[in-house]
């Protein structure tokens, strides 16, 4: 089940992964962000090298002349973590956790095809990786829901199981787990895309039998030892959609939480799969709002034939929303939300790179000769974000939490998160932990406390949130 790591996977892990050896330890602040790594990958491709080439010695030579912004000394420090890597690999392997890099042929084809350059460079998993190619129905919803909705999610899971369709979820408490439980109890298959704690879930008694039987696979783009992190939870949403054929939103709150953000991102921009909303049971303002944004009503099938028909025949595309005429259509939405959607289209667009890693030829998406962003660079959204970028970078010369930022900017926290995340992915803003704060990289004249800590290898004290 676990494979030896390729040299490319080793190099990518060294550059991007925190390599945690136990709960209660923190990773290195020097790690390359996904955006930084993507730029490096482009550079390496351009000079005819691959990530593994960096293990060969001449790091400075390989990095020379690129626009990746990576300081050779920082690269050397990250690549010098080989012994740490070997220990982390051992820790994962003991828990039957496999690791796969975007440069490996066995990287899930669905993720590569759907997310292209935004596909996570590293994927950790436990269980039969083949299940990741099977598609299925994504069931998403929040953690805190009532019994009725839990029962609803379980029933959907059971119906999917009876229909031979896998259930894809985020594996979180609440709707996610209920859907998964319904599927597994009915002898079906499930895919859990975790935002944290893969190492713990992989050995939990609840999932053991299904993992062992090859009916469940758990995956995560985050270190198996890492704990919960809101940003991670938001980011893994697109993986849930990418691994499914259709998605059903069981509940969502307008403008709040990962379910909302993930669904909006799908219906308004990524459009990887059809997104349905629950129509049976208690009404939901959030679901109505999602449907006005482009989600479809779920016809609530009860038999396998109808269910399979639904899975195989995507609903007719809704016409793209006309923002200018949207106000009467969506009376429940605050004006700022409309603005945010318009911006999201550009703001969270994948980093515009043409190539990544050293992907095997057959799995490699055709290089984009002409970058084709969803919106032209001079679109109103792009102009707005350009203003937002310089404003935020100047605000973030000192670290701020996202709550502080949304207070200063006077926009919804969800919107702030989207903007900040985009700047993090660009590498312009850095995420600090304990508490989570953000700081501008370029505009920072003085290293922050955390950066100092990282470079002098001082112990980073923190209170362990250990399990027992």
């Amino acid at each position, binding site marked *: 089940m*676990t494979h030896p790591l390729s040299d490319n996977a080793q190099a990518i892990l060294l550059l991007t992964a925190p390599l*945690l*050896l136990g709960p209660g330890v923190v990773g290195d602040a020097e790690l390359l962000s996904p955006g930084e790594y993507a730029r490096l990958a482009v550079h390496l491709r351009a000079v005819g090298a691959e990530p593994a080439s960096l293990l060969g010695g001449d790091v400075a030579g390989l990095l020379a002349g690129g626009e990746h912004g990576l300081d050779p000394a920082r690269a050397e420090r990250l690549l*010098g973590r080989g012994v740490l890597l070997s220990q982390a690999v051992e820790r994962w392997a*003991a*828990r039957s956790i496999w690791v796969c890099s975007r440069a490996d042929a066995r990287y899930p084809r669905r993720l590569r095809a759907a997310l292209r350059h935004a596909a996570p460079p590293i994927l950790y998993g436990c269980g039969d990786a083949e299940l990741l190619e099977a598609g299925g129905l994504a069931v998403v919803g929040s953690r805190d829901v009532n019994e009725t909705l839990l029962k609803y999610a379980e029933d959907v899971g059971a119906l999917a199981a009876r229909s031979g369709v896998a259930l894809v979820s985020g594996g979180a408490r609440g709707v996610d787990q209920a859907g998964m439980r319904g599927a597994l109890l009915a002898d079906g298959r499930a895919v859990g895309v975790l935002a944290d704690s893969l190492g713990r879930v992989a050995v939990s008694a609840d999932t053991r039998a299904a*993992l062992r039987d090859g009916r469940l696979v758990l995956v995560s783009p985050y270190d198996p030892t890492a704990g919960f992190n809101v940003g991670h939870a938001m980011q893994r949403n697109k993986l849930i959609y990418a691994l499914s054929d259709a998605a059903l939103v069981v509940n969502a709150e307008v403008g709040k939480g990962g379910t909302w953000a993930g669904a909006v991102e799908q219906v308004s921009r990524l459009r990887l799969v059809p997104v349905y909303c629950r129509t049976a049971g208690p009404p939901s303002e959030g679901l109505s709002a999602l449907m006005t944004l482009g989600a479809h009503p779920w016809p609530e099938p009860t038999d396998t034939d109808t269910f399979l028909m639904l899975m195989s025949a995507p609903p007719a595309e809704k016409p793209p929303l006309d923002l200018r005429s949207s106000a009467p259509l969506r009376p429940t939405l605050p004006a700022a939300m409309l603005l945010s959607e318009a911006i999201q289209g550009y703001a969270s667009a994948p980093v515009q790179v043409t190539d990544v890693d050293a992907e095997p030829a057959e799995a490699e998406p055709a290089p984009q000769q002409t970058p084709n962003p969803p919106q032209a660079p001079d679109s109103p959204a792009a102009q707005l974000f350009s203003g937002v970028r310089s404003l935020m970078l100047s605000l973030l010369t000192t670290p701020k939490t996202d709550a502080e930022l949304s207070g200063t900017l006077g926009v919804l926290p969800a919107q702030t998160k989207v903007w900040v995340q985009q700047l993090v992915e660009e590498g312009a803003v850095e995420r600090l932990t304990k508490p989570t704060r953000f700081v501008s990289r370029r505009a920072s004249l003085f290293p922050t406390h955390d950066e100092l800590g990282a470079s002098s290898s001082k112990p980073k004290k923190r209170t362990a949130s250990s399990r027992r």
Partner: protein
Amino acid sequence: MRFDPLRALALLRAGASDPSVEFREAQEEAIRHVVEGRGPLLVVQRTGWGKSFVYFIATKLLREGGAGPALLVSPLLALMRNQLEAARRMGLRAEAIHSDNKGEWREVIERIHADEVDLLLISPERLGNEQFNQEALQHLAGRVSLVVIDEAHCVSDWGHDFRPHYRLIQRTLGALPKNVRVLATTATANHRVSEDLKSVLGAALTVRRGPLGRPSLKLQTIGLRSQAERLAWLADRLVELPGSGIIYTLTVRDARLVADWLSAQGHVVAAYFGESEARPALEDALLKNKVKALIATTALGMGFDKPDLGFVVHFQAQGSPVAYYQQVGRAGRAVSHAYGVLLSGAEDDEINDYFIRSAFPTPAEVEAVLDALDVAPEGLTVNELTLAVNITRGRIERTLLLLSLESPAPIVQEGGRAIRTIAPLAQPFWERARRLTELRRAEQQQMSDYARLTSGHMEFLIAALDGDPSPHQGPALPELLTSVSDATLQAALTFLQRTSVPIEPRRQWPAGGLPTMKVKGRIKAEHQAQPGRALCVWGDAGWGALVKRGKYRDGHFPDELVKAASRLVQEDWRPDPPPEWVTCVPSARHPDLVPDLARRIAAALGLPFALTLGATGVRPEQKHQRNSAHQGKNLDGAFSLIAAPPPGPALLIDDMVDSRWTLTVAAYLLRAAGAGDVYPLALSVTLGEE
């Protein structure tokens, strides 16, 4: 990195405190190889060749060039006590973290965090340790530029030396990216072992071998079946052996026994084993020739460096020719004449058999442990497992260790609990266990062949190590006499019969307590037994055979044992305050055997006998209960007080002592009913794992 030969030589001279010393054959080349980063290197050189200078100097040069620290993994840390000095002299900041220096960990970890450690020495067990990984390794491993694996033959499944944690190292090495420097060192690697290492470290592995012959060593084998004969031989011949040396035994008990005997015969010796207090002081005494010999288990190990060691004698045969070569090779490194003598006896095979048999858990043990963990959502502690499965604590721990070192592992240990993973125990585990067991048997056979050799000893060992088998010229030393004097032999026999075995009282009720008796946790001091004694170890060379025959053949213990027991109490042991009456442990299965023995011992001591305890019914035999939790539970409510105990201290008699729970429960009942101190006295103890 560029290698600077002048700087390397300067470091060697500083380390050796000798301004004119030159590099030994191949030392400089090995250092150059490591510093220049020319791929993984395996150095096979005899102990004392100077492997530590290779990694000390290489590390120092790497540090001076701005590289990160080195991590040295070595199973035996005696290595450092007389070599750390050399490191300090060359300005290399070396620190160690292992189970013997827990008090220093905090400080060492702080120095790691501050990047004030150039070389960290750890035992292989550390790598699998959760706490060490989090507190130390997480902060060090991100900068390590060189990994040194000492005793690298252990990495191979075919190595003679099976150390479970080297499985972990094997995988660690396999998972290292190629930009990490790796140096593996060993004194002994036959072809199969170096092939195995090649498969772990990659085909690019460079192997550098030195010669195996030891021209200064005179090897001899002497077969003396009984322990008494071997004790007598040692007493008679020790003075003829040159300088000071090491006498190896297979068990801690034998190390103590031989040391006690030789001391009683007027020789200046001391016992040395893993749990010895003051191990550094004992090593120092040997280094400075203040003792004629240390009587040691393998705890006095590889890397202990005394260049003028005059002899190595084995009281019992080692299990494999390679292990034997390693141990005997410690003699005569820097002197022209030294003896390596193998005494072999009747019990060697039995002890080695035990080591071979207990190396791996049985399929039934593995199944029981995994089944118990399967139904425990939060996993189980070892204590909880002793309640769940009837397997000795030691075997449970062994099973957990070996399972957790598999990859993927069927269990992981986290926060003191064993937790089941999704991985099944794969077939290769059993195949490896079978192959290793067969290998051990073959090596055992090789050792019996060696023990019977009359000539060509060194050639035999070199051939076993795949070295150059051409004829070997030994030193001009006479063969040692193989006979022993009658007087010494008689003294040795008496000594063995007068050697008693201590019985330590238990201080803690088993996990879960004993519900019928309503006891749990610590045993109150006023309810504990006093320290007791046994005449012998079950089946051993003193009284062992007589006890066995009395119990299982005759159903009656002979007067010799009664006499020996009363002499032990009156002359050797002399408990204070002395016992005033005698009682015994009851048995429903053999109601008269022990009371009869106890009555006769009481008569010989001139003390009254009182039957105070009765058995409430036939229980499953205690010897089939494998751990404290099961043994305790089996005895819960098994005995009752049938008569009020007389006042004053009592002698509590039993024939055989195994887990000590019988004595513990009996002493508790007596003390709770108002008896004075209770001194357990048994004919024999079994040396079980509990």
